[in-house]
């Protein structure tokens, strides 16, 4: 009989102790805020909030009161409701645009890094061309031609994000594609598709996911900036960015109108960043023992 591994039981049982690292308070706070904001965004229509479009001309720029928990804006609309509905827009664009980048860019990057050669040169070259376009001008050109809408905005921001995701996926794939476990899969007769999906993807997915969360944060800010300039979502739809833009005029009289959406955006972006960073650090597969 082959020389058996003694003490295997004790060694193996000892390992799981390593997994549970203490997640900081900050991480849980970030998770909490993210969950809260997403919940509010999804449930906004069913929450007992006043309508965000009802204008009450008598209560314009009103301070905090029992009727309007966060006051009203320049047109008498309830600020709290507007922030809640604004979250819907900001999060929709913020989450779905990077998804476009993740799927298309991630796939292109993995294929480029795996197959190399002319295909890779073509992909990298095209991404370089895309990156060379000034993003703001491109966004403007698209919205001018196709019209301003949430869908168009999401699509253009998504497309602009593809090169970055492609880079991350390709870099990961390049490091992994020549490692022995991939060659082992090839030696077993696995098809390219199988290698890409079962061997490479689980390893590339994590850096991509971490980058995705950072991408969400960036997209929210970019959408906010565009809307602030009036080039993003068209009125009467409002996102946090356009609310900040409108609040600019009332800064001396009612600074809350600009600050409340700004704080909401700040906290949300910060939370996504924190969760993304922590997730990346936690799930790093440690190579070798102590």
């Amino acid at each position, binding site marked *: 009989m082959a020389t058996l591994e003694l003490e295997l039981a004790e060694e193996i049982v000892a390992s799981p102790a390593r997994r549970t690292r203490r997640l900081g308070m900050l991480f849980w706070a970030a998770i909490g805020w993210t969950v809260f904001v997403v919940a509010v965004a999804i449930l906004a229509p069913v929450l007992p909030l006043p309508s965000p479009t009802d204008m009450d001309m008598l209560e314009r720029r009103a301070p905090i009161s029992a009727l309007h928990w966060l006051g009203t804006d320049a047109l008498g609309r309830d600020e709290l409701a507007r922030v809640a509905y604004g979250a819907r827009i900001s999060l929709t664009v913020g989450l779905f645009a990077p998804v476009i980048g993740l799927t298309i860019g991630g796939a292109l990057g993995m294929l480029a890094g795996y197959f190399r050669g002319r295909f890779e040169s073509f992909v990298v070259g095209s991404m370089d061309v895309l990156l060379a376009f000034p993003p703001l001008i491109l966004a403007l050109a698209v919205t001018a031609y196709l019209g301003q809408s949430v869908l168009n905005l999401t699509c253009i921001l998504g497309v602009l994000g593809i090169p970055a995701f492609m880079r991350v996926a390709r870099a990961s794939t390049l490091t992994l594609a020549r490692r022995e476990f991939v060659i082992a899969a090839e030696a077993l007769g696995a098809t390219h598709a199988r290698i890409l999906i*079962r061997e490479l993807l689980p390893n590339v997915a994590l850096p991509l996911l971490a980058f995705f969360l950072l991408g969400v944060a960036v997209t929210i800010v970019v959408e906010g900036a565009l809307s602030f300039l009036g080039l993003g979502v068209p009125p009467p739809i409002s996102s946090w960015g356009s609310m900040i833009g409108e609040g600019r005029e009332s800064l001396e009289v009612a600074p809350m109108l600009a600050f409340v959406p700004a704080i909401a955006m700040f906290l949300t972006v910060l939370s996504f960043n924190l969760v993304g960073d922590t997730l990346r650090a936690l799930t790093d597969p440690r190579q070798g023992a102590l």
Partner: protein
Amino acid sequence: MHGNPTMAARTPLLKVDNLVVEYPLGTRTIHAVSDVSLAIARGETLGLVGESGCGKSTLGRAVLQLRRATSGRVQFDGEELTALQGDALRRIRHRMQLIFQDPIASLNPRRRIGDIIAEPLVIAGVRDANKRQELVWEVLSAVGLDPALVVGRLPHEFSGGQCQRICIARALVLNPEFIICDEPVSALDVSIRAQILNLLEEMKQRFGLTLLFIAHDLAVVKAVSDRVAVMYLGRLCEVGPSAQLFEKPAHPYTALLIEAIPVPDPEVRPTEGVAVGEPPSPMAPPSGCRFRTRCPRADARCASEVPELRPIATGQYVACHHPLIAG
């Protein structure tokens, strides 16, 4: 007739003819393998030994068609591998397997051991999940691991020696006929090395395997091989039965390798100054005999004429113009 001088008497399981592997690096070419021919009989272990840069790993990969050869033929059980593509090549892969040097890097860090070992079965088309589990458990027990404790875990929870056992299990699960072991114990500690070598021998007996054992450690190669081939800078220097080769080496390089091994005996004073010089670069190999820049016996003929493998003793072949024993 143009016969492969190293062919064993029985029909060989693996036959390599005039294999050449060259690949470009920038503007220059690396001559990794230059015109190597060998044959391995069924049930035999052929050891392939040489230092880094000699092309032994490249040869192993080229045999398995993981790296396309520039020219030459590789026949496995009569089938010409270089002519196969796609599915036909994938099907024959189930009969030939590979074990690597770095056991931890050979396992996907994100997959569980049970999945990793079941993977070959899935690729081979074993649909029944119960049957797969049965085979996985069987092979894990065979390599000395307790399946219940191992299948649900990830590679980083295991030591180098245990990972190598898992790799061996993965290689065995499809019941292959031929396994190439590419430096399987070099990355392991001395006491674990012996365990794994014994395990390989036992698995060979139990499963009736044919092995190509690649290593740079002569003593390790001798311990497991029936015949040994010595490689230097892409060419074979000498081939012969293990015991005979080490007792009476014919090629000066083989003698040099034997001299250089540190012997754990304080009475044996290491002879100083025997090993001289460094191996030349595979991008610019010397003309004629590639070992001539380090060989004390080299002369003009060695620079102009490439020595061919020729018989020098029973079963022993050498590629040298001035071998150490008279042929």
